[in-house]
């Protein structure tokens, strides 16, 4: 537990012994059965097995805010848009809510701001003086089909602009063709390019199609040194789902058992509501425990979710249902 502050963003994985990776070892994943229908059943029943109400729910929602990677990854992003997002990242909750929740001494901030590489400098500047890290997508986001040399150069660039975290994408073809060496080498090279910045490997689960592929890709990415594994770019047909998440969590639990390293997890794409936030926090608690409910091991890639979290917290405080317009937009 981060004793200094509940909410100080620590950077992805920064409180942990950093993943040193492992040699490519296919025996860690090739014999592992992933039964899709059984995974789906577990995923379907899990949210119904736990309930968080009243002040507990409020606290969990505050925790969710601190785990959000507040994201803008659109073709029409401008510096102005990014500055506005960063302002919201610094102050994700209205002052009166913070007061009412008794959090004035240590107000929550989001986990990070996540932007394209050309927006990193703007974000770094806008967040100066806060401890909110800047994450950049890179390496040919979203499809990863740019030549490797350019993808590594893009990472270099983003790191050079001051990004603390790099959300890379993998080459899906390596997984679909079961070319584990190529995947391992690619992610290893990216990890090296990241240097001190932490690497979050986007596996694009929706493109990998089978849960077995997803498990294998998770394991190879971790062996290659990923600090986080992330479900999706948000641009695939299917993005973060509970079954994908469950399989990735099982992989990182197995990786921990093999190596002792604790790897972070980031679902992204499709998580919009406070209810989603609670569901994924329940998933983290049930599958991995308290450590994985903090922002150095858990992030939620989202843009719209924050407003719903605010509305629900407002309801907790006032007893009235709130409207979107009453909360500052990102």
């Amino acid at each position, binding site marked *: 537990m981060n004793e200094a502050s509940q909410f100080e963003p620590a950077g992805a994985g920064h409180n942990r012994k950093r993943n040193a990776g492992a040699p490519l070892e296919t025996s860690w994943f090739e*014999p592992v*059965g992933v*039964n899709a229908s059984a995974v789906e059943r577990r995923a379907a029943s899990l949210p119904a097995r736990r*309930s968080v109400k009243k002040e507990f729910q409020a606290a*969990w929602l505050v925790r969710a805010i601190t785990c959000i990677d507040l994201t803008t990854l659109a073709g029409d992003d401008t510096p102005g848009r990014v500055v506005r997002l960063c302002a919201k990242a610094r102050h994700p909750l209205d002052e009166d809510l913070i007061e009412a*929740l008794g959090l004035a001494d240590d107000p929550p901030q989001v986990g990070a701001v996540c932007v394209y590489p050309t927006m990193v400098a703007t974000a770094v500047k806008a967040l100066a003086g806060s401890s909110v890290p800047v994450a950049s997508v890179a390496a040919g986001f979203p499809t990863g089909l740019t030549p490797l040399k350019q993808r590594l150069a893009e990472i270099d660039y983003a790191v050079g602009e001051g990004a603390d975290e790099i959300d890379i994408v993998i080459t899906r073809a390596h997984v679909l063709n079961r070319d584990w060496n190529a995947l391992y080498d690619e992610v290893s090279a990216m990890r090296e390019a990241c240097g001190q910045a932490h690497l979050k490997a986007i596996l694009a689960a929706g493109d990998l199609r089978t849960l077995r592929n997803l498990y294998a890709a998770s394991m190879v990415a971790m062996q290659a040194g990923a600090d986080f594994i992330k479900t999706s770019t948000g641009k695939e047909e299917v993005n973060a789902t509970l079954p994908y998440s469950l399989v990735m969590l*099982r992989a990182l639990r197995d990786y921990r058992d093999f190596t002792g390293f604790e790897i972070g997890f980031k679902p992204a794409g499709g998580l919009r509501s406070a209810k989603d936030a609670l569901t994924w926090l329940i998933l983290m608690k049930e599958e991995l425990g308290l450590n994985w409910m903090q922002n150095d091991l858990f992030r939620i890639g989202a843009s719209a979710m924050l407003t719903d979290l605010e509305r629900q917290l407002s309801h907790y405080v006032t007893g009235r249902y709130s409207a979107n317009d009453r909360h500052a937009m990102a």
Partner: protein
Amino acid sequence: MNKITDILRSMDYGPAPESDEQVRAWLAGKSGGFGHFIGGAFVAASALFDVTNPARGERIARVAQGSESDVAAAVAAARKALPAWSRLSGDARARHLYALARHVQKRERFLAVLESLDNGKPIRESRDIDVPLVARHFYHHAGWASLIADEFPGRRPVGVCGQIIPWNFPLLMLAWKIAPALAAGNTVVLKPAEYTPLTALAFAEICVEAGLPAGVVNIVTGDGTTGAALVAHDGVDKIAFTGSTEVGRAIRQATAGTGKKLSLELGGKSPFVVFEDADLDSAVEGVVDAIWFNQGQVCCAGSRLLAAESIAEKLNAKLRARMINLRVGDPLDKSTDVGAIVAPVQLERIKRLVEAGERDGAHVWRAPGPLPTQGCFYPPTLITEVGPASILAREEIFGPVLTAMTFRTPEEAIALANNTRYGLAASVWTENVNRALEVAARIKAGVVWINSTNLFDAAAGFGGYRESGFGREGGREGLAEYLTSGPPAAKLAATKPTKANATAVSAAPGLAPAPGGDAIDRTAKLYIGGKQTRPDAGASYAALDPKGRSVGLAGLGNRKDIRNAVEAATKAANWGAATAHNRAQVLYYLAENLESRAREFADRIRAQTGVAAREARDEVEIAVRRAFYYAGFADKYDGAIHATKTRFVTLAMNEPWGVMGIIAPVAAPLAGFVSMVLPAIAMGNCVIAIPSAAHPLSATDFYTLLDASDVPAGVVNIVTGETAALAKTLAEHEGVDAVWCFGGGELGALVERASAGNLKATWTRAAPTEWADEQGRDYLRRATQVKNIWTPYGE
């Protein structure tokens, strides 16, 4: 520090209680106690006993202890309602069942809370599993009510059904009993379990609310003596029971010879088999749903974990880690995984069994999570270092206790899985489809879940093999239990024992031969394991013609001959695995050979029974036709794929019983014998047949046909002799899976009583007088048992 920052440190779930306010108010309104629900109204409450909430040990209601006269009144009400209800059109009954389904849904939360309060099961389960399945069952059977006339032509309701249900799924078991009974046009008297009568009483109010005609559903509360009174009542046509094997056995004995139709859904010690290639994390979740569902108080609970030795340690480690997260506590808390054990006496039983196992050297690991300080709670428990001989691996514990064993090969896994008296359910985990289906086929259980567990649906059949009972609930096979084609309210007891049943057989010589006995002496022997064998006792008896003259000697078989025959039949089990085409070929060959000796067989019938030549010829012709008929059917009695859940193939496979005993009728020595033996072997059973004691020689002639027709050794075994003595030994034999007896009367009663030992399925009836039409699907249905295999797909 305020609350929010405190919680941010612990990230506890906090309490999330489901409100029980409405239910408590309802119960408060019944503080005078609940009377029985008879004839559409609650009768005045008397002889009250307490109903407690096991989570808190508090009294929540008082209900009436049903007496014999209460049961009689309820049966009378059901009888009175029967004619009108059974004459209603299927559509009209469908509307009533549909209304019940809708009303259950409208009261879903109320019923879920009441169930959890009364039984102690977590609200998540009563809310998400029990009550939705209840509604589903009524909807499904509303459909059947409309379809019965078309789908079950010529069948009619059984009559008044006495139904006795357990405390583990009180409302769901009520639905499983009442929905098919009503759909088929029966009326019912239901006795809920003593510990958990409240949702049944709430359901009675729903019946009133939904406008169900008075007397169609009657509910009598009480303990085992009330159930016994219901079982014993003369006016009941069928007993359906779900509960312990011990009580099931007593019911089998009590109903023997009464002509009451019986279905029993009993205990289990179901295997949960995990192969080395399985998805282990998912298998762990499967175990959670198998043994920590409903506190393990589930008849089909996967209570025996069988894991491949190579992954067992890893699996157990994952299991322990998972068990730490199981939350034991207040059933009404929405975050509770494991609620309260239903009653202190059950809790004591669990403790006693686990402690006994522990003393025997088993390693007991109890999940370390906190337990409530009051109420009936037991922690999720994993037991390792335990062998098949341990009491923990054999006894149904009926609690949250899992015993774990290992195996080396698939063969050994199957052997361990089948090393039990029970056969209710099994769960098989592997990513290899060939292996999954083979193991599913070879485990002796009525329900097999592949890569899943404890899935239920109204469209699938549920019920056991072996001592887990007989009969199915759900689906087409379940509905068949509530339909009959026999004469209305026929009671075997009413039929007089025929003279021939009591045929005296004597080993003493000295009888005059019938005329025409100057051919070379032919000696009829027993036929066991494909060999003509002398009776163990070295004795024969004379078969007499109607004038009392000897027409030949038959072997006087005894207990040991039956024992040998069962052994031979057991060894011939490959017959069931032969292709149906192959069995058909053998039956055609048999028909061919019989026809070529038609004259000789007709003469033999005449000589024994004295019937006219024409009649004897007809009988042989019937026998030939029967062989053709079942040869034709051998590869056509298909199973089904039930429409259950999405992305599941739920296979309903018709499997042979295995070893069947057949007690042939006295008259029609050839047609009777053949009409019973052939459907049995066409489906892949191996049989031990006891021919007519009075006219045994047609059957003994028949074995020469078996020899000539490539019927493999042991598939048909024939033991002649005194019917009652042989039938008793056969019906008692624990290696026999089913017995048919067309003797009626006392012989039928004897067979039913004797069958209680291993709860083999029985079909007893008076012998038909006319054999021409004695063939068809009903014979095949009774020659098989249905195994439902749930196979998921999708990647």
